[in-house]
């Protein structure tokens, strides 16, 4: 009887991410994935029911890894500035170290699988960040504002810098690599805008 092989399973996930990033959903098939991994289609179906099952599991796994990283040394009781800085550190570290996974997660999040993937991977995250914001507003560390405006200002600049970094270039095709100096500068401006 065939059993699951963890090394093979890791390879499958890695290659699936690469195919999704390079070719999107249209170019992705179980047959192509099996060929790219050098395994039989049957082996792939031992791990996953079908393409949708694979994509959902991949999205949930990356999501959980990302959210675990977000929570590292973070507490909703932290001061707003300290907590948001920790979020910038955690999010940028994960994004810089896992560029393909992050891109793959973005692709899955813009698909019809998004609701399922978010529901399964986020779990407590919403309430933790909700509490963090409420605490900050109660302590007069943060101006009251809508969630959308908050997110755009608090994280928009971070994700814009990370996008430049992943593309290797910024506006006007200028070569770009993310630096701690740029992160600090952008973070200080975000704090000025929010507090």
């Amino acid at each position, binding site marked *: *009887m*065939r*059993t699951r092989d963890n090394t093979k399973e890791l390879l499958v996930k890695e290659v699936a991410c690469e195919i999704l990033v390079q070719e999107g959903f249209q170019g992705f*098939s*179980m*047959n192509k994935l099996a060929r790219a991994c050098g395994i*039989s*289609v*049957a082996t792939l*179906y*031992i791990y996953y*029911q*079908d*393409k949708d*099952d694979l994509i959902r599991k991949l999205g949930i796994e990356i999501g959980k890894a990302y959210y675990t990283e977000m929570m590292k040394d973070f507490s909703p009781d932290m001061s707003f500035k300290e907590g948001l800085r920790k979020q910038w550190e955690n999010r940028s570290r994960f994004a810089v170290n896992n560029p393909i996974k992050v891109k793959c997660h973005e692709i899955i999040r813009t698909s019809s699988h998004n609701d399922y993937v978010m529901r399964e991977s986020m779990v407590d995250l919403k309430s933790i960040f909700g509490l963090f914001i409420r605490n900050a507003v109660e302590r007069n560390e943060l101006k009251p504002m809508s969630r959308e405006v908050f997110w755009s200002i608090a994280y928009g600049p971070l994700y814009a810098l990370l996008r430049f970094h992943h593309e290797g270039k910024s506006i006007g095709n200028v070569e770009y690599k993310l630096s701690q100096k740029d992160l600090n500068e952008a973070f200080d401006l975000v704090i000025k805008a929010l507090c």
Partner: protein
Amino acid sequence: MERQPRILIFKTNIQTREQKRAIASLLNSQVSIESWTIDQEDEDCVLRIVGFAVDKGEIIDLLKKQHFDCIELH
């Protein structure tokens, strides 16, 4: 150690919703089958059967009687 169910994988030509419906009642009535799925988006229309006492010969016979191709994939 916890007993693991067997997973059998078949290449088929069950391509349409109607064809899937036709085999669904047959597969659902098999006590040896815990669950089954068919990937109709894949070019091999892969049928995946999970069960503790599933027998590949029985599955192949079952589908052949309904005039479907059914080849076990290894």
